[in-house]
């Protein structure tokens, strides 16, 4: 049996890289897809071409690698922690993404978006005041 405190510590140790790799992965995908270009129409053929050219982009592969690392750590943490705990806490990555897209992709981030990001952070702070694992009860 792992003590509650140790469990909480283990959970945070994994959640930090989870947040980082989720945010990095999404920013890299965004960068890659912007280089690939817009989808002109909503047809299967257009999507096929889009995905083929997407897999030729180095940024896309870096993004996928980053998201794979995220997935493995996500699986490990879910082997003991509640999904309803991990899910909102990993939302901290949503606060990182506007920062990264502002600085790395030069996108403009409006005041409303920044307010939304603050609310998300506040929500995450509330969730982390609950124990990481209550266990499935079904």
């Amino acid at each position, binding site marked *: 049996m*792992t003590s509650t405190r140790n469990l909480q510590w283990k959970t945070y140790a994994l959640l930090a890289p989870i947040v980082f790799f989720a945010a990095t992965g*999404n920013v890299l*995908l*965004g960068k890659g*897809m*912007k280089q*690939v*270009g817009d*989808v002109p129409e*909503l047809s299967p053929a257009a*999507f096929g071409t*889009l*995905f083929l050219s*997407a897999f030729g982009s180095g940024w896309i592969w870096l993004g996928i690698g980053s*998201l794979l690392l995220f*997935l*493995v750590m*996500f*699986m*490990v943490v*879910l*082997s*003991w922690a*509640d*999904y*309803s*705990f991990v*899910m*909102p806490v990993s*939302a901290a990555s*949503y606060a990182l*993404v*506007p920062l990264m*897209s*502002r600085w790395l*992709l030069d*996108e403009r*981030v409006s*005041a*409303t*978006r920044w*307010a*939304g*990001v*603050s*609310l*998300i*952070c*506040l*929500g*995450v*702070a*509330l*969730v982390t*005041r*609950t124990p990481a694992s*209550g266990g*499935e*009860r*079904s």
Partner: protein
Amino acid sequence: MRTALCLASAVLGASGGELSVSHAMKQLGELHHFSPRSLINFLGRALRVKWFWAGIALLAVGFFSLLALLSWADVSFVIPATAMSYVTGALGARFLLGERLTPLRWAGIALVSAGVVLVSLS
């Protein structure tokens, strides 16, 4: 219209996939040792759980919808908007996984969702 469709499929794919993966991992039980060997063993066991593959399939649907969406919309709009999946995820955790959500946790998830709506409005 294409944005709404892709967003819906990205959101439902992501939260459905994560719920399935979560269910699969709970069947495996807590990982205690973090050596490369026990980690590989753990991942190997995960590959034999049906719910894991259901989750991966749903995550793939969500992922490709997201990829398409990112080709025409701003990252700082798309990523927060897909956080709609926090609402569907919380409901799934409560009613599909049977997790007990305390009022504090519901409040936190509600704040996260409110933040998402704000971000998507702009």
